[in-house]
Every structure is written in structure tokens, then in C-alpha cells.
């Protein structure tokens, strides 16, 4: 059975059908990309998967459990974490602290442990620090451990967002345009990094406009246009799909018509 199964999901914003009757699935260990023109509803799908928005209709099953309309924290616990199209780091916190916030749910002590510095407090704080360092090492972030997130170079901020998502203990990572604003060399590095995540056993859904990234790392691709899934398949199938080409080329005509 698929790790994530989305059936007939719709999201309506007033009169606007941002997502309509969308079906897709993601298997364990896959990298699946969602592509589509601006305003197609890609980010909205991430917001539905992570509980930021409630679905208007439809069902989302993750790891055998229905998660649509569940609370955000519940979904993080279930094992889905994400990054944001517009970077949303904790800018006034250090890199290591950002990652430790990701460990929040697994840092299990209460206010009394904190005040009296009980062994439990020490155990979990120690664990959070060590694990955060591990994650930062795996990213090659040694020199940035003390840096405030807001002061990191742009590309590193995107990576830190991924690190923070990993820290939640997620099985499924949702990456919203991680290569946005990167130069070709940076996006090449990012590509390697994402493939590395796959080797570590993460399942990934990627929203990306950079076709060189999408075509190179996706196992499968879904194409969204005006809130509808218009195609899906292997990268080479999508590259030659007439509807996809039209959706992208037709975009400028739509804009003119708007």
C-alpha cells in the first residue's frame, strides 16, 4: 500500500476552486514531483497535507490513517514535515536552535523537569543537542552552527529549513520549491542533497519549477493545472506529454485573457 494516498481532494476558497478532485499517491522511498504553472494549486496541496487548511472534500490517508482536517501538530507527529516556498525560519534563533525546535515533539520533559533540572531534563536536552549537531553535520553546516538563521546565505537558509523538517522525525518530506532563487551550481548541490535524503530512506514530495532538477531526481511526476491533475507519469513521459506542454505554453494566453 502507498505511504500517502490522496483521493478526490478539493479545496475551495470562496468561489475559487484552488484544488479540485485531485487523486495521487506516493510510495515509500519515492521522490515524487508536483509541477504546474503559477497558481495551479501546488502549495495549496501542501497546506492540505499538513493540516494548515481543511479540505473541502476528499480523503488523505497517510501510513494507513486518515489525516485530512487533523490538527497541524497531529500531522507532524504522524510523520509529515515540510519546507516553505517563502522561507520561514526562526530568524532570531541560531541554526542549532532552529533544528532543536524541530525536535520539539521528541524532547519529552515538562515544566517541573525544566525548573529542577531533573535527570529527565538533562537526558532529553542532551539528546536534542547531539541529534541537532548530527543533522547539521550531515548537511555540512559545521561552520554555521552558531549563526542566526536570518544571517545565513540564501541557499543555506533553504537547506536549514530541510534540516529542521528532518529533525521532526518525519518519514515524508514536502519540499516547496527548494531550488527557488538558487544559481545552477547551488541547485546542483541541492539535487545531490535530496538524492542523499532518499538514500537515507526519506520519502519526498517536491514542488519545483526548475525542470533540470525535476527531470533528474523524480521517480514520478504529477502535473497540476488550474487545480486539476492533468497528467502523471515518469519524467520522460511528462517531458513529451502534449497536455503538459500546452499547460505551460498556454499560460501566457490565460494571463492575457485574465
Amino acid at each position, binding site marked *: 500500500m502507498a505511504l500517502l494516498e490522496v483521493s478526490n481532494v478539493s479545496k475551495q476558497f470562496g468561489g475559487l476552486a484552488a484544488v479540485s478532485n485531485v487523486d495521487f499517491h506516493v510510495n515509500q522511498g519515492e521522490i515524487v514531483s508536483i509541477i504546474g504553472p503559477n497558481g495551479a494549486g501546488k502549495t495549496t496541496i501542501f497546506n492540505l497535507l499538513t493540516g494548515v487548511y481543511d479540505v473541502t472534500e476528499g480523503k488523505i490517508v497517510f501510513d494507513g490513517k486518515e489525516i485530512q482536517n487533523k490538527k497541524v501538530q497531529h500531522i507532524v507527529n504522524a510523520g509529515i*514535515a515540510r519546507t516553505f516556498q517563502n522561507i520561514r525560519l526562526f530568524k532570531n534563533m541560531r541554526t542549532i536552535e532552529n533544528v532543536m525546535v524541530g525536535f520539539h515533539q521528541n524532547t519529552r520533559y515538562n515544566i517541573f523537569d525544566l525548573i529542577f533540572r531533573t535527570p529527565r531534563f538533562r537526558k532529553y*536536552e*542532551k539528546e536534542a543537542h547531539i541529534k541537532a549537531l548530527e543533522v547539521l553535520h550531515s548537511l555540512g553546516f559545521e561552520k554555521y*552552527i552558531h549563526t542566526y538563521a536570518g544571517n545565513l546565505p540564501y541557499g543555506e537558509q533553504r537547506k536549514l529549513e530541510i534540516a529542521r523538517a528532518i529533525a521532526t522525525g518525519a518519514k515524508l518530506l514536502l519540499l516547496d520549491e527548494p531550488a527557488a532563487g538558487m544559481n545552477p551550481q547551488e541547485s546542483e548541490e541541492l539535487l545531490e542533497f535530496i538524492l542523499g535524503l532518499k538514500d537515507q530512506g526519506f520519502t519526498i514530495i517536491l514542488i519545483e519549477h526548475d525542470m533540470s532538477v525535476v527531470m533528474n531526481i523524480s521517480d514520478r511526476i504529477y502535473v497540476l493545472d488550474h487545480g486539476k491533475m492533468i497528467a502523471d507519469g515518469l519524467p520522460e513521459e511528462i517531458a513529451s506529454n502534449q497536455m503538459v506542454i500546452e499547460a505551460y505554453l498556454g499560460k501566457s494566453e490565460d494571463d492575457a485573457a485574465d
Partner: protein
Amino acid sequence: MDKRDKIIWLVLLAALIVLPAVGLSRYLQRVISLIFIYSMLGLSLNIVTGYMGQISLGHAAFYAIGAYTSGLLSEHFGLNFLLTCVCGIIMAGIIGWLFSIPTTKLSGTYLAIITMGFGEIVKVVIVNWESLTHGTYGLQRIAKPEFFGFQLNTTNNGLYYLCLIFLVIFVLLCIAIERSKLGRSLRAIKDDPLAASLMGVEINHYKRMAFTISTAMAGCCGALYAHLSGYVDANSFNSDVSTLILSIVIFGGMGSIKGMLLGAAVLVSFPEVLRFVAVYRFVVYGLILIVMMVFRTDGILGGPSKRPYVFPRFVKLEKGEVTKNGTAGGK
């Protein structure tokens, strides 16, 4: 806390311990004790405003609740100060918690206005619930704290040291909060609540917890103040007090523990120092705040630190694993 911080704290503490030995006048003792209490009030509001970024303009209300709870229990039942103080803490904390339930979702201006309104309500209740609070007469001759038959007063410096001990406890508590998952969660909420919730931080729970801790701490300050001054009435807790507490947090530097002490020292002693310019002292005072807002929005000691992150002592790192600038050495 790194070495430099530790030295600063220890030197400051030592200085404050020996200070009364030089023979402080009653007046100076009172001013310094007041600075201690306002430092503590600053520390308490710092949790909500400094770490979490929510503004409260009604902190004096919880300060008042602590003072009246402790003062009345002492008046009616003659209970020991420590006991009445704990009751003051609990009462302020419970009311703070109840207050936080309907206001969890509010922030910014809305929360500022609601908290200000709450401050006024508490004042009105104090004035009008005469059977309990003696109305405008206030609480008179509140007993000085007594331990084992030994009364703390200004002659034996007892009140000074009592306030100092409470201040030390408050500072330790705030350091513990700052360097924990609670502190990190509050700062994460301040920076980006949505991202924080997507990291699994239970926003509403933490907002209420911060508010409860903060108001309970304010209640403690109230109890201390009531027994220190021996007299309180509704005017001891008017909106000027709330404004002063918020000013201490902003001036000292949001999120900075040292900043609260500095802020209280400056803002509480200023009106005293500036007595000679009489009515104009509030002009000077206001001017300072405006200049701060324009030129140093982080407050004097707030904002990002230039020094490396300090790992807790119990986290033993392998040598060279993390090095100095970007990289703190050894363990």
C-alpha cells in the same frame, strides 16, 4: 551562560550582598528594593513580551492580585509571609491562566487593548469591593515578613535581602526557561507561529503556559511589594505601573535577562535622580524611550548575541567537533 556572563553575574551578586554594609539610608534601601521588585516584574513580563512577542499593558493587574491576596491573608489569618506569598503566586497564576483562555488567539494591538482593559477592571474591582479590599482605604499596616520570630525590616536590612533572594530565584528561573524547550518554543512562536506549529509546537498551549508563568511571577512581586511597603491601595497598581513594566522590557532589551535588571535600575531610579527637574522628569523619561525606539529597537541589551552558542555543561562534545567562531571548542 558563558564564562564572561558568569563573572558578571557573580560580581554583581557579590556587590549587592555587601552593599548594605556601607550603610544605606532607609530611602536608598527602599529605592534599591524597588529596583529589585521592578527587575522581577520586568523578568516576568519578559516571558510573554520578550520571548514570545506578545504585548501586555495590564501586567499591574496581576501584580495587584498577588499583593492583595498576600496582604489580606496576612491581615485576616496572620499567616506566615512565605505562605501568603505562595497563595499570591497561585491566585495571580490562576487568574492569569483563566484570562489567557479566551485571549489565546489574540495578538498585537488587540491583546494590548484587552490587557489594558483588564488592568482597569481589576482596579475598579479593588476600589468597589469594599467588604473585601477596604476600597479606597487600601490595605494598611501589612505585617512585615517574619521568620522564626525574627522580623525583617529596613533597620536590619532584612527586606533588602529578602528582595535580593527573590530576584536571584527569578533570574535562575528565567535562565532555566531560556535554555530549554519552553524558551525555544516561545522564541519560535515570536518569529513565526505557523512554522512553529508545523514543527509540532502546540502554540495555544505554550501561549497559555507563558501567560500563566508570567502572571504567577507578577503575583509573587505583588506579595513582596505589599509586605515591603506595608501599604497598598488601587493606585499602587494603576496603568502607569503597567507602562513602566513594559518600558523596562523594551528599554532593557526584549528577551535579555540582564536587560531587565538594567532597565529597572535606570527607569526606577531616573524619576528619583531627576527630582530636581520636577515635573519635567517625565518629559526626559519619555524622550529616552522615544530615542530608544528610534535608534535601538532591540533595547540596550537585547538583540542577537555576537558570541557563540553555549552548550549545556552536560552535553559533552568531542574535542574539535565544534570549534570557535562558528564552532565552540572542547566541552
